């Protein structure tokens, strides 16, 4: 069969190296691989945690030991060996810095490579950055400014030391230890993450952001994030991840809990670019994440995400719409290429009257990837007059990729209004040729088409994220029409 131009372009893109693949050589304090009660005690003591937290971890570990790893119909992967992972790795340098001059220059170099140098951040809109690397938070800036408003934004480890009552009150209240296999594991061995607390009526003046990196080979990443928005408050939180190139699969099993009290609003945006594995599907990050928010009366939680990385993704940001008049939103663009597999979606649980949810999910599949969307809309008997609107679109770019949609609609209240739409379309040779004939190059054409397709979601991202997200989308799909 003749080789088309598409074939040649596909060859070109799969040879394209992962932009962010590099390692930082910093001394790390790592414990031996393996997981048992003893390891948990070590972690807890290294972090100087109070007794109640150790008990909480141990309870989680017990629950996890009794659980079985889940199997998912549309995702195939080699199960990680949990005994072969080291559960703690911290750079030896101290983590508190009065100014950036005191930050390890290697770290600064790392941040530069990631394109997020702290200097730049300072000059921009005043984004406060909590830089997480290898299970320990490194730099926290703007702490004072936020402090004036009563906003707490720090690492979870710090919060446990300085605001234990807040952590104790809310930790596990949205995602209990026994929620699922990975949540249980995370509850037992989480090392750090972000903690965010916005007091009553305060509108957080800047976007809060955090970055992750997995550095050491064989280190699982178990981040735990807790965001508490008191009555009438507002916060916009950005999460963006990158990871270096590795042969072994790296596990990322994070938990994010959001508590949005009466009339509060939390926007949680993610741009995820974990290493997706090479074109044979080897290496790459396993991303098993539990993200959930609980909305009290008239409050709102929006999950916005752009996902282009990781070898295997299992992720369902959810909202429990507990309060009357609460709103849950989910906007997502998920790209899979080469041999990536994604089984993602969302859950909107309507408990409160007049609760509303909106789901806009745009999947883009290319190469030999498999992209599944699983969405659950559950209307409980007490959820009078609730409404849901879901759009789930799939865009296929090759004839070897797959897109699957599984909407689950459970309505136990007759006044509910649920709308679901799903479409599947192709970027075909004809569309590319049409653009070429108008003088637009193929890469630009794909960029135009993909941006047009994803614009409903990209519009929801905070601006600086939107720019990175758009670039990311185009890069991850270069040459992928075929």
């Amino acid at each position: 069969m003749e080789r088309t131009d598409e074939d040649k372009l596909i060859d070109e893109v799969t040879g394209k190296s992962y932009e962010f693949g590099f390692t930082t050589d910093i001394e790390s304090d790592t414990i031996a691989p393996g997981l048992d009660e003893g390891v948990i005690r070590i972690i807890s003591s290294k972090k100087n945690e109070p007794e109640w937290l150790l008990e909480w971890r141990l309870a989680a570990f017990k629950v996890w030991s009794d659980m079985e790893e889940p199997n998912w119909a549309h995702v195939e992967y080699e199960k990680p060996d949990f005994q072969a992972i080291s559960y703690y790795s911290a750079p030896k340098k101290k983590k508190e810095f009065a100014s950036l001059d005191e930050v390890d220059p290697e770290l600064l170099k790392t941040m530069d490579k990631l394109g997020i140098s702290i200097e730049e951040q300072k000059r921009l809109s005043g984004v406060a950055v909590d830089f997480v690397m290898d299970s320990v938070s490194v730099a926290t800036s703007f702490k004072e400014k936020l402090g004036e408003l009563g906003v707490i934004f720090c690492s979870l480890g710090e919060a446990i030391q300085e605001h234990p009552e807040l952590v104790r009150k809310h930790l596990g209240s949205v995602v209990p230890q026994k929620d699922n296999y990975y949540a249980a594991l995370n509850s037992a061995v989480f090392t750090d993450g972000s903690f965010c607390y916005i007091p009553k009526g305060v509108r957080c003046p800047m976007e809060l952001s955090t970055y992750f990196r997995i550095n050491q080979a064989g280190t699982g990443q178990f981040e735990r994030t807790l965001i508490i928005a008191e009555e009438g408050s507002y916060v916009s939180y950005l999460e963006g991840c990158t990871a270096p190139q590795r042969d072994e699969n790296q596990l990322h099993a994070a938990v994010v809990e959001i508590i949005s009290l009466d009339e509060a609003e939390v926007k949680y945006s993610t741009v995820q670019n974990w290493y997706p594995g090479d074109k044979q599907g080897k290496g790459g990050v396993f991303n098993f994440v539990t993200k959930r928010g609980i909305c009290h009366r008239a409050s709102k939680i929006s999950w916005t995400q752009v996902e282009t990385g990781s070898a295997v993704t299992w992720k369902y940001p959810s909202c429990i719409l507990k309060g009357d008049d609460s709103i849950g939103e989910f906007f997502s663009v998920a790209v899979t290429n080469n041999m990536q597999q994604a089984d993602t979606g969302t859950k909107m649980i309507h408990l409160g009257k007049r609760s509303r949810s909106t789901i806009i999910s745009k999947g883009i599949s290319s190469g030999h990837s498999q992209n599944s969307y699983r969405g659950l809309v559950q209307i409980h008997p007490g959820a009078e007059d609730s409404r849901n609107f879901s759009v789930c679109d799939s865009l296929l770019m090759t004839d070897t990729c797959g897109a699957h949609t599984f909407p689950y609609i459970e309505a136990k209240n007759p006044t509910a209004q649920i709308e679901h739409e799903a479409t599947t379309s192709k970027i075909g040779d004809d569309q590319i040729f049409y653009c070429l004939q108008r003088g637009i190059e193929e890469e630009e054409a794909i960029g135009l088409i993909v941006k047009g397709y994803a614009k409903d979601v990209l519009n929801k991202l905070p601006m600086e994220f939107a720019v990175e997200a758009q670039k990311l989308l185009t890069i991850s799909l270069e040459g992928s029409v075929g």
Partner: protein
Amino acid sequence: MLKIKNLRAKVGNNEILKGLNLEVKPGELHAIMGPNGSGKSTLAAVLSGRDSYEVISGSVNFDGIDLLELETSERAREGVFLAFQYPIEIPGVSNLNFMKAALNAKRAHKGLEPIKAKDFLAKVKDCSSLVELDGRLRDRSVNEGFSGGEKKRNEIFQMAMLEPKLAILDETDSGLDIDALRVVSKGVNAMRSSERSFIVITHYQRLLDHIVPDFVHVLSDGCIVKSGGKELALELEEKGYDWLKKSPHEIHNI
């Protein structure tokens, strides 16, 4: 402007163009007619550089450039425009953004700055009124939800925006009712100039009542078997194509 010499081209294993010769000078409008399967659309595809069509031999010279050496997008930026027989829908990409991207690609090729927003919008206004293209259609996604007539008008709108040197209209009149045909023809006629050439491929003679050609060629079985002035179109209207199924020698009484 355009010199096609002995062009032979195939799709898969089928040779469709079997030694086509054609010369188009600046300012001229050539009509190409012929029965189904004669190679009309193949000619358009080959000139625009469509992948699945392979040139076996022959040459195409466009203003001193070897056109066959260039990629599709390069040919476009050099000034070749193809109005598609079945224009493609591109959901999510607005008509305006599409035009802006194309215009700027052409300008960049010429070493110019991207077009200013104000100038762009003014240009859009002029070109859309030329083909009576509704303001709402301009803002929609490329050809999505457009009727057949609207799609064809959109092609002419794009042609007006991009101001090509050579415009190839591939069966632009197919599927158009009288009113749409009138509007499309008006647009094409308004774009005629001494610096611009047209190759109008048509199956139905009716178009040529509105867009009067300088030359008419009949394409049959991959070659041009007869050429003439606009009267030839009328002759075809009366006689059909059967009388041309003889070999070129017989027709030209050689």
